[in-house]
């Protein structure tokens, strides 16, 4: 493979947006049949570069060659015609239609009469070839996230893609599905496809990439390095521009009095089936209780019950002795419960409001920002600017709309708002999901700083490593019950893994 011909060459690509140089003379090459990982922090310019390759933007200057021939894409259609297919992080599928219908969507043939069974056969043949199994007649809504991703991949393959771009493909997958996805990538390159793999997860990059290119602030810091001979610490250093401490340091400290007390909590999920079947938990001041578990075992419901966003059928939730079960969300806020929600865009922020309007969301009622019936705009702006500085939120100004922020910066907006409320308890749900190493480190540091100040923290995460480094104790949720609680200092991954699978341990 080292001397394989180039599938894609991007030379001196410059992409300029008003006020931002998103790509500054970037060089990138993809060899036929390789997996090339594209790394970089949020906002480093990876997505912009790939948007240029998939025809969404036109570079300000620079040359793109596909199989050696210079190309100029005016639309994604041109890029697809040249054999370049992008699998987006957010799937673009019609839930009520079948797999085959989704694959055919937007194509010129079939024209009027669909004759779906014939095309089902074609789709099946394609599946056979690449080992991507999904029932072609199933409707999208019936499929798991991993299966939907396979449909997206089939869509690009059906259109004749030779180069596949995966934009953070594993961010949406459950741990078990990730292994399957890595297999898929391997089988695709075995069949001669070339893959560009955008990811934040260094262990996956380590496992699967042949070469890597790293972007930082729009510039290339490592161009096509061979993966062999690089380690995680080096990768992180290339991305962030400084050494990253993988295990943030946690001091030993004696926790204080009990702050959160959950007793026999029972609640249903959105479908009305039981999600919590009697959960007992308590957290003391200055203590981090980690919640481990495979997604969908009651974690989200637990967080929502504590913060007043979900109806509790039975049991009690007390913060400093005050009952919060089935109280409106304002009661939890006033009791000093901060909440870093699982869904930053749908729940944690208002996309079309400014950073200022987003950070005052829980502070606008009281002085100095709230002033009787009015809001003191000057105070609000000042407060937002202070947070922007302290928490290193990267944005042109505090008047920037929330939807323009990258994931990491949006999370910093939410985190800063929740921490400055001087909470007694922080409920943090997947606080670092989808963020780059630099942002992950910053957010973990902030949580530990809160622990030092005596805040109780409920940390729900799917990253076992994160739970083990941050938590004092780890409770494992399985099917709405606590399977066991382990001391983080002495717990082993195997022990927790077993509990996550539903094996009862001696608590």
């Amino acid at each position, binding site marked *: 493979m080292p001397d394989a011909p180039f599938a894609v060459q991007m030379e001196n690509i410059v992409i300029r947006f008003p006020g931002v140089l998103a790509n500054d003379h970037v060089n990138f090459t993809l060899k036929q049949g390789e997996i090339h990982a594209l790394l970089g922090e949020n906002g480093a310019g990876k997505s912009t570069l790939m948007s240029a390759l998939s025809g969404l933007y036109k570079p300000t200057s620079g040359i793109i060659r596909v199989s050696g021939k210079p190309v100029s894409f*005016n*639309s994604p259609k041109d890029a697809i015609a040249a054999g370049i297919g992008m699998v987006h992080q957010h799937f673009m599928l019609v839930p009520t239609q079948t797999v085959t219908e989704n694959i055919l969507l937007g194509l010129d043939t079939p024209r009027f009469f669909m004759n779906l069974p014939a095309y089902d056969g074609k789709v099946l043949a394609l599946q056979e070839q690449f080992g991507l199994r999904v029932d072609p007649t199933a409707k999208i809504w019936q499929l798991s996230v991993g299966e939907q991703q396979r449909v997206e991949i089939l869509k690009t393959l059906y259109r004749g893609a030779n180069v596949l771009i995966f934009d953070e493909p594993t961010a949406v997958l459950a741990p078990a599905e990730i292994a399957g996805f890595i297999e898929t990538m391997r089988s695709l390159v075995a069949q001669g496809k070339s893959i560009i793999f955008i990811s934040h997860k260094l262990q996956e990059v380590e496992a699967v990439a042949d070469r890597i290119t790293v972007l930082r602030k729009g510039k290339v810091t490592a161009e096509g390095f061979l993966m062999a001979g690089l380690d995680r610490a080096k990768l992180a250093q290339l991305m962030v521009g400084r050494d990253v401490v993988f295990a943030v340091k946690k001091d030993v400290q004696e926790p204080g009095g009990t702050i959160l007390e959950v007793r026999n909590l029972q609640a249903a999920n959105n479908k009305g089936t039981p999600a919590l079947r009697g959960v007992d938990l308590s957290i003391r001041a200055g203590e981090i209780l980690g919640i481990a578990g495979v997604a969908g075992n009651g974690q989200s419901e637990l967080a929502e019950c504590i913060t007043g966003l979900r109806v509790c059928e039975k049991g009690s939730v007390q913060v400093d002795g005050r009952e919060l079960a089935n109280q409106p969300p*304002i009661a*939890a806020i006033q009791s000093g419960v901060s909440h870093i929600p699982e869904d930053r865009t*749908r729940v944690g922020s208002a996309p079309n409001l400014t950073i200022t*309007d987003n950070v005052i*969301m829980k502070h*606008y*009622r009281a002085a100095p920002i709230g002033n009787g019936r009015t809001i003191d705009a000057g105070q609000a702006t000042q407060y937002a600017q202070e947070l922007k500085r302290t928490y290193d939120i990267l944005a042109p100004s505090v008047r*920037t709309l929330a939807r323009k922020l990258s994931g990491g910066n949006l999370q910093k907006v939410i985190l800063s708002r929740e921490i400055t409320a001087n909470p007694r308890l922080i409920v943090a749900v997947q606080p670092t999901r989808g963020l780059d190493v630099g942002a992950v480190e910053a957010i973990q540091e902030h949580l530990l700083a809160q622990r030092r100040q005596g805040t109780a923290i409920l940390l729900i995460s799917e990253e076992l490593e994160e739970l083990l480094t941050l938590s004092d104790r780890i409770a494992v949720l399985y099917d709405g019950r606590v399977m066991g609680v382990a001391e983080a200092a002495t717990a082993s991954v195997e022990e927790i893994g077993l509990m996550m699978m539903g094996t009862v341990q001696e608590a």
Partner: protein
Amino acid sequence: MRFPVTLLIEKRTDEIPGWLPAATSIGSVIAAFVVSGVVLALIGANPLIVYQFFFKATFGSWPALSDTIVKATPLIMVGLACAVAFKMKLWNIGAEGQLYLGAFFASTVVLVPLVPPESPKWLVLTAMVVMGMIGGAIWGFIPGYLKAKFDVNEIISTLMLNYVAILWNNFWIFDRWSDAGFQMTPTFVRTAWLPRLSDYAREYRMFSGITLHLGVIFGLVAAIVVWWVLSRSRWGYEIRLIGDNPHAARYAGLNIARNVVLVMMFSGALAGLAGMSEVSGVVHRLQERISPGYGFTGIIVAWLAKLNPFAVILVAILFGALIVAGREVQPSGISQMIQGFVLFAVISSDVLLRYSIRLVRAAPVEESA
């Protein structure tokens, strides 16, 4: 054979410049007049002469301008009513009914009467303003409460309540308060008339025949109040937050149900004020068809003004002018046609805010290997 130039439409990723929304709105109004001009030319009229006549009939003299503003007055208030509700993504289609109920409640002050007939003017008018707003607020409360409590779709309930309000008015003007069998009530006592400029014609000759009344001041004050509420007050912040993301608003501890009811009542009160201003400033009695669909035009006004209270005033004046022009030009459908084109153009111009459009030369056709 490919066309040598293609239109490239790209989603805007950058911040749009502040002047652009205003420029596209003004541009689309001009475009609407140009297209209407083509239609006028096709039916054999000279568009320039027609537009000249339009202008003279609407802005060309003091009485004409006054007529335009009189027509714009209710539009300002219902436009604001819709803008407030739309800001929270509450689709209040019921401004028409709220206007009628406001007119009815204001009229009760004189017709029941709620204050003694010999009361001073300020007392009668204040009572009418308050009652008009209460009437509209009640008509806003009903769909607001239904939505907050039972999640009843406000589009349907507000739309249906329009008919109820109109028929309610008809019952009173056809039956109880009918003036000698006509479909109207007797004329109000003079103390229930909003002051007009023509009232001062004896002192100032130039005011003679100018029907501009105090209602326009109500509209301007209402615009300032709405602006203040939406952009300066705590409540306005809550309205904007709920409008943008109700999930985030609930998470931030806001009481959404309460705000749905309050905003619908505020919206209804503004439309009710328009009804009061019509009966007390223009017709001086309660009668059939006090509104030729102002409540529905208000939806368009709010939308064209992009929910900006001050832009509502300007758009309302434009639409007021089109109503006046419709009286002056035959066939009267021409002014409705222009209204349609304006709406069409402004709504389409949104594309320019969300996408950047450029012409590019088509790429040379390349066969892929």
